[in-house]
């Protein structure tokens, strides 16, 4: 029963040279045709896709970095602007304050000066007036006295007397005579 089987088994390891030839032919033809029609296009497509993906990732990374840089720039610019605005504000207030103070000081000084010059003027005028009044009073008194005691006294004695009288008058003229007040 097993004899034909063993005979057939010897066929298992029998190498047919024809089949080797046909296999080689088929394989080479398949390899050439497939390389030309299938593997070439598929592989180039795949490579192109890989390149595209790689470049997309690369450009996405680059763009992202750029955007981040831009954002950072914007942020610093905004912060800078804010800082500048605050600084300007502060400086403005300071300047305003300074200006106001300066203005105040100046006006105060001016007012002071005005007051001083007014007082000086007043004093001057007062002194002038007083002198005038005095001289007038002397003249008046001399006239009056001359009229009263016309010939008794010589001119120089009369004058000295009148001067003496005038010296006796109060200086500021608060209790001066009506003649003094009128000239002022």
């Amino acid at each position, binding site marked *: *029963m*097993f004899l*034909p*089987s063993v005979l*057939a*088994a010897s*066929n*298992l*390891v*029998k*190498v*047919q*040279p*024809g*089949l*080797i*030839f*046909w*296999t*080689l032919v*088929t*394989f*080479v*033809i*398949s*390899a050439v*045709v*497939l*390389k030309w*029609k*299938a*593997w*070439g*296009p*598929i*592989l180039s*497509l*795949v490579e*192109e*896709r890989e390149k*595209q993906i790689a470049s997309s990732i690369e450009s996405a990374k680059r763009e992202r970095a750029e955007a981040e840089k831009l954002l950072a720039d914007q942020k610093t610019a905004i912060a800078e602007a804010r800082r500048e605005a605050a600084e300007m504000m502060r400086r403005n207030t300071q300047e305003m304050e300074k200006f106001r103070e300066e203005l105040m000081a100046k006006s105060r000084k001016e007012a002071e000066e005005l007051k001083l010059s007014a007082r000086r003027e007043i004093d001057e005028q007062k002194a002038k007036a007083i002198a005038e009044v005095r001289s007038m009073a002397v003249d008046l008194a001399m006239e009056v006295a001359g009229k009263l005691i016309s010939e008794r006294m010589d001119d120089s004695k009369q004058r000295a007397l009148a001067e003496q009288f005038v010296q006796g008058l109060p200086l500021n003229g608060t209790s001066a005579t009506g003649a003094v007040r009128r000239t002022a």
Partner: protein
Amino acid sequence: MRKAMVLFASLFAATAWAAGSEDDVPGYILHHVVDSPYLEIEVPLGNPIKALEFPQWHVPLKANGCAPRMTEHGEEIPGLMDGCLDMSITKHTLMMWLAALLLMATLFIWGNRDKTKLVPRGAGANILEMLVLFVRDELAIKNIGKEEGPRYVPFLLTVFFFILFMNMLGMIPWMATATGNLAVTMALALCTFVITQVAGIRAAGLGGYLKHLTGGVAPWLWPIMIPVEVLGLFTKPFALTMRLFANMLAGHIVFFFLLGLIFLLGHPAVAAVSVPFAFAIFMLELFVAFVQAYVFAMLSALFIGMSVAMGHHHDDHGHDHPEAGPSHDQGKAHHA
């Protein structure tokens, strides 16, 4: 798939039943797996029909080399040693051509997609591209290297898909497994061998290639070294040949023997055990069809990588991979 399997099992069970009248299950199985000069279609509950008889083509290598001679088995046409080259088309030749045509058709359908769209659409194009990328990245570039790898990708792809399609064709009822034939696997290994040597000569130059054959030892050791290195060249394709052949053949024989147990033991109840087992083996065979195609392509890439690496020893690609590894384990697991 389960339905297909049950159909498959019942078909062969029925055919084996018909053959069982001669009570020669091993004979039936061996007859099924070996090559034949005709295509038989097995008919359930009937005798197989010789559907196609292939033309015989014998090329005499010497005068009158192919004249039939009388031997103890009857009239026979002499073999190659006696001066007759048998170039006949056989069952396995037909299966191989069918696989090649199917492969080309598949690739033309799913490989020729819109060139302007870079992303594949549909399951077919996606699976195809996944396998192509797998062969390119995991086999070619990992084993051969980044610079030299892409050059051998088309070869490895053809090897992978051609073997895969032949393996898968053998899983279809009425078809045969061309890769379960020693001549086919030998020719495929021969292709890898030639490519490997060409890769070595390309990488190292003819001088470097020949120098590598001396093993880099002192000249007085050459008489020992050169035969060893030359032997080493041929063990690689031999291993490729035997691995693919034995795996594909063994799977089919185991599958048929499990079904044949029904007739060997002579009781229908055996089917309750042997059919599920045969189903499991069938599933395993589907897996092995992929694994063996992968292993063949992977080892081809490995051998090419080793050959390329001897051209530039300073590069670290290729030659530190041990030839053993998952492939051998898978092969052994399958035998066990």
